[in-house]
């Protein structure tokens, strides 16, 4: 499991625009570099990042809404620096859970959740 660092305010006012920062520990090996033996280092990249928001009221509604709304997505290429860092925004409307997912080469798939409370 890769280590992640997610920064989201614990509470926000309704309609406040919050900043979300997400960092994951990963080498983002480009596939162009060589080791000290001269062998090409195999490509190992994180390819996709998504952030979804699941409103808290989802418990008594239908199951489809538990997937949440996609609020931000990113497709990465080799030109993204090691330990990919992203910062983006969200207009906070209701309390709920933010679901962060990273997918990449060699079967990498990781999901982290952070709750957001609207005061």
């Amino acid at each position, binding site marked *: 499991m890769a280590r992640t660092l997610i920064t989201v305010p614990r509470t926000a006012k309704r309609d406040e625009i919050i900043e979300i920062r997400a960092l994951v520990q990963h080498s983002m090996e480009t596939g162009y570099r060589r080791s000290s033996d001269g062998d090409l280092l195999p490509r190992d990249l994180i390819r996709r990042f998504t952030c979804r928001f699941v409103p808290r009221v989802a418990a008594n509604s239908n199951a489809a809404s538990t997937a949440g709304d996609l*609020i931000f997505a*990113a497709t990465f290429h080799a030109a993204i620096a090691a330990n990919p860092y992203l910062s983006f925004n969200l207009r906070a409307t209701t309390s709920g859970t933010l679901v962060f997912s990273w997918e990449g080469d060699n079967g990498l798939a990781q999901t982290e959740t952070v709750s957001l409370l609207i005061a």
Partner: protein
Amino acid sequence: MKRRSFLASSAGLVASVMVRPVAAIEQSSVLTALVKEYAAGAVVREGRVKFDIARLVDNGNSVPVEVTVDSPMTPQQHVVGITLFNEKNPQNDVAQFSLSHLSGRARVATRIRLATTQQLVAVAKMNDGSCWTHTVEVLVTVSSCIEE
């Protein structure tokens, strides 16, 4: 030259240097082709996008970038995507970001790799299909991709 006229003229010179507008650089044909492909027939115009990156980069391994787009981000009028292309890395793609009116603000920041001194372009696609760009030129002193 009289002192007074010298001071007046030199003040004018300083002012002209300081207020020099950010000249639109001539976009490289590589980037123009990439943007055209991404736009897929939509109108591409310069403006509304601000690509924030250091003009002089000491180390190309991790270069902070921030792209902001002038948009109200309402359901009627918002940015749906921001894409970054580079001119001279081994691959021209850098990243594609998807946004929606839920974002509240059309902004994304990340860190990228730069192999050498080159141009970069940020393209924002609006929900009405129009595309807006900002091209920047970056001087890289120590490139990415060289260290073992």
